[in-house]
């Protein structure tokens, strides 16, 4: 058993729902008890979907358990077919459904429906949402595209001269972080390069569309967490190469353009020569000087976290002080990236552990999920959301992709907006006793209530952590309070460590500045 307060990912059948809900013409029959229908509201409320997810729940109850739950499943599946007339059906069980071992796949086959029925067996007590989405998408692709696979050993036919290259966009689902807008952005980027999109899947695809995935020349994997497995199978089966670069950030987008251009055999130089994004100039403009070395903590799914670290470090000049993911399946990617920034990778799905890490590191900006938004709010640290899980405000009315050149513009604005502006930060540091510039003052353009003022909590954490022997003299303590609140905890910790290491019993103003000079080196 695992004690869990908040979870980053739902159970795997919610991943399957994200695939099914993103698609058209597919219906998912889920063997599940009453209550599991809560998952519908994720889509209708958080994503504001205007239709119910295409999911039928068998809704068995305790008294059914003594009777025939298998018959209940068959009835539900038959009724769902009759009512919704889907092109294909997905069948499976939720966590409780799987315990009663009714074999939804076998039961559905026994109905002999005139459509493909794909059974997905998701181990609810081992796996989680993203894994469930990946497995479901893979099973759908195998079942629906498999019949048109060429015989093994037959090479992929050459594209005829003069025919534009075609690719599939793989990975976007319902409830994904900005998937809706990433598709638009990447489709238009590919169009500029002279590449057509054959099928985007699962989002917006029908089962018939999935069946013709093999017609594309190659695959673009937008979200490896969801599409990686399906893309590998398509490569083995249809000889389709797939992209490895996820186009989040300016450098990654440029690399992505080069990668797809090579796969499609087109010339990318015109696209690469245009100034398609403002991020590089905004970042170079002198106003952005104050961004230099801002300490940033990053946590999310692996793809978005790794991309965010690269943008933060290379494109905005921040300092990455923490990097982590809740996607254990992608721990390797995070560990590699963490090495580049010389930080300890944090691979956990324990919300409390993440909170403790943020409190300990005292970053000046947190880039995370909606969970980190709450952590940051509590600790009084500015925050921007970069990854699922997300909440209703992360499905904005406006066009706001994360990918491609426009995505880079969106990221610049979103990450810089919560921060204190350059001159304001200086003034705050200079005039500590200004009655309007109180401790924990929020950036003036955000107004009161945007970010709760910091409690002295980070400081307390550091006091506990440092095991002090040295005692603070009153004037030194007062001087410490003249240091901006967001770095004060670190200053306190460093000073205490310096004092302890040097056998200083009482920390004076001199000790404070000695330590400052020591750690500045």
């Amino acid at each position: 058993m695992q004690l869990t307060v908040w979870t980053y990912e739902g159970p795997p059948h919610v991943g399957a729902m994200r695939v099914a809900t993103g698609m058209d013409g597919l219906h998912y029959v889920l063997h599940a008890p009453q209550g599991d229908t809560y998952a519908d509201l994720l889509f209708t409320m958080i994503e504001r979907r205007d239709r119910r997810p295409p999911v039928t729940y068998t809704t068995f109850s305790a008294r059914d358990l003594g009777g025939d739950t298998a018959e209940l499943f068959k009835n539900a599946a038959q009724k769902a077919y009759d009512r919704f007339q889907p092109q294909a059906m997905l069948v499976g069980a939720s966590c409780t459904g799987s315990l009663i071992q009714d074999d939804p796949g076998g039961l559905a086959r026994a109905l002999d429906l005139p459509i493909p029925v794909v059974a997905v067996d998701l181990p609810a007590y081992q796996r989680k949402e993203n894994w469930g989405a990946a497995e479901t998408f893979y099973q759908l692709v195998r079942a629906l595209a498999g019949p048109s696979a060429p015989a093994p050993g037959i090479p992929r036919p050459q594209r005829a001269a003069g025919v534009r290259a075609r690719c599939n966009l793989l990975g976007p689902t319902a409830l994904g972080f900005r998937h809706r807008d990433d598709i638009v952005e990447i489709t238009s980027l590919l169009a500029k390069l002279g590449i057509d999109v054959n099928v985007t899947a699962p989002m917006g695809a029908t089962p018939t569309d999935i069946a013709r995935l093999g017609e594309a020349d190659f695959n673009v994997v937008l979200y490896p967490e969801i599409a990686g497995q399906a893309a590998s199978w398509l490569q083995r089966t249809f000889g389709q190469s797939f992209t490895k670069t996820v186009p989040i950030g300016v450098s990654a987008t440029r690399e992505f353009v080069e990668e797809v251009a090579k796969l499609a055999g087109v010339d990318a130089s015109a696209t690469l020569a245009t100034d398609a994004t403002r991020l590089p100039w905004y970042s170079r403009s002198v106003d952005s000087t104050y961004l230099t070395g801002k300490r940033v903590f990053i946590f999310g799914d692996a793809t978005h976290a790794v991309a965010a670290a690269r943008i933060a470090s290379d494109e905005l000049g921040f300092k990455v002080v923490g990097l982590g993911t809740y996607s254990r399946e992608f721990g390797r990617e995070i560990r590699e990236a963490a090495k580049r920034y010389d930080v300890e990778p944090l691979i956990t799905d324990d919300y409390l552990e993440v909170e403790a890490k943020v409190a300990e590191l005292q970053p000046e900006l947190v880039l995370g999920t909606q969970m980190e938004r709450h952590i940051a709010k509590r600790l009084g640290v500015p925050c921007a959301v970069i990854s699922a899980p997300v909440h209703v405000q992360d499905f904005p009315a406006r066009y706001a992709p994360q990918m491609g050149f426009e995505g880079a513009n969106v990221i610049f604005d979103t990450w810089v907006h919560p921060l204190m502006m350059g001159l304001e930060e200086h003034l705050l540091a200079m005039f500590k006793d200004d009655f309007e510039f109180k401790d924990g003052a929020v950036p003036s353009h955000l107004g009161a209530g945007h970010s709760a003022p910091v409690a002295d909590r980070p400081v307390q954490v550091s006091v506990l952590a440092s095991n002090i022997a040295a005692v603070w003299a009153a004037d030194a303590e007062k001087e410490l309070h003249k240091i901006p609140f967001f770095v004060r905890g670190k200053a306190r910790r460093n000073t205490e460590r310096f004092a302890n290491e040097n056998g200083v019993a009482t920390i004076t103003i001199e000790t404070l500045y000695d330590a400052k000079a020591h750690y500045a080196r």
Partner: protein
Amino acid sequence: MNVHVQGCQVAADVAPKSIRRESGQREVFCGLTGIVWLHRKIQDAFFLVVGSRTCAHLIQSAAGVMIFAEPRFATAIMEEKDLAGLTDANDELDRIVAQLIARRPDIRLLFLVGSCPSEVIKLDLSRAALRLSQKFSPAVRILNYSGSGIETTFTQGEDACLASLVPAAPPNGTSEDQLLIVGSLADVVEDQFIRLFDALGIGAVQFLPPRNSAALPEIGPNTKFLLAQPFLADTARALEDRGAVRLAAPFPLGVEGTTAWLRAAADAFGVAPASFETVTGPHRIRAERALVRYRDQLGGRRIFLFPDSQLEIPLARFLSRELSMQLVEVGTPYLHREHLAEELRLLPDDVVLSEGQDVDLQLDRCRAARPDLVVCGLGLANPLEAEGITTKWSIELVFTPIQGYEQAADLAELFARPLVRRAKLVA
């Protein structure tokens, strides 16, 4: 409005209303959802769900991911190895509880909450609660109940929770009759009722659940109890098993319901009619005045209630009798005939009631009827709005103070707002 409802009369004279019973897909929460408000109500209690990742995800989604400083609920998520052997599962549970209590020394009452998977694998949480109580008593009292979807619907989780508290409550300390109000109410509503009962001279009123687990009510043959919520079948039975007597009454929604509810207590405690009139009269008049503008907005409008919280029947009575709305269909997940006898009697004779749900069939009926307003859960609201049907989220009726005189107009406003909003929007 001045309806007198006899205290002890039972369902004998209720017009037999036709009820459509349905089974099929139910678009309702399971009983775990009650934790969202119960953990705020009982301020030193912690709710540990023994379940799956789905349970954890459900509560966090139902709570709209309200991240409190640190919530007083959590899930012990079962893993593959817990399913393999129950001995291991019990050991694991003991470990988790020890970890939790060490982490939260402020907790005085811990509920082990059963879920669908824990029920299906027959993990005996009552034995676990007993075992752990011995270990952690007297610092922490450990109780258990089931909020599983295979046994409970949404608000039935509160019923199961309160029923588990009854055996833990002390016996009556006096020979005087004592009034007990049963069912979670907003603190502000409780305080209003305390003032009213005090003015009626009924004396110290007790509440279940209490705001603090140390203040469990005294229960025994001297206890007369009023249900403040219509979904408390098991709790009522547990109270009756200890000799307590239920005062039959409609529920305190709207002016009429509140008056009849208070009157049931007043009659049982021998309050003189004139005195009842003096105490409640001004409140009633004020509340009726506040309702007038909503009757203008809602009168004659057709409303369809999907099953959700079991509040549907009292709400329908209020909407029909005090706001002159027309009831198209009144769905309820479960109908307790006895507890709702006084309510059913006040509904129009031709009302269409449905119990249980086959959501697709019910949506067909709803679309065909084209009501002016639909009360439904969060999974259905936006899809219906997209079809041009105005909706009211039913969960708001559970999370908002709606009982009592001072809230009667607030309750009406909840139904008026979606219609006002739709009329305002031109784009």
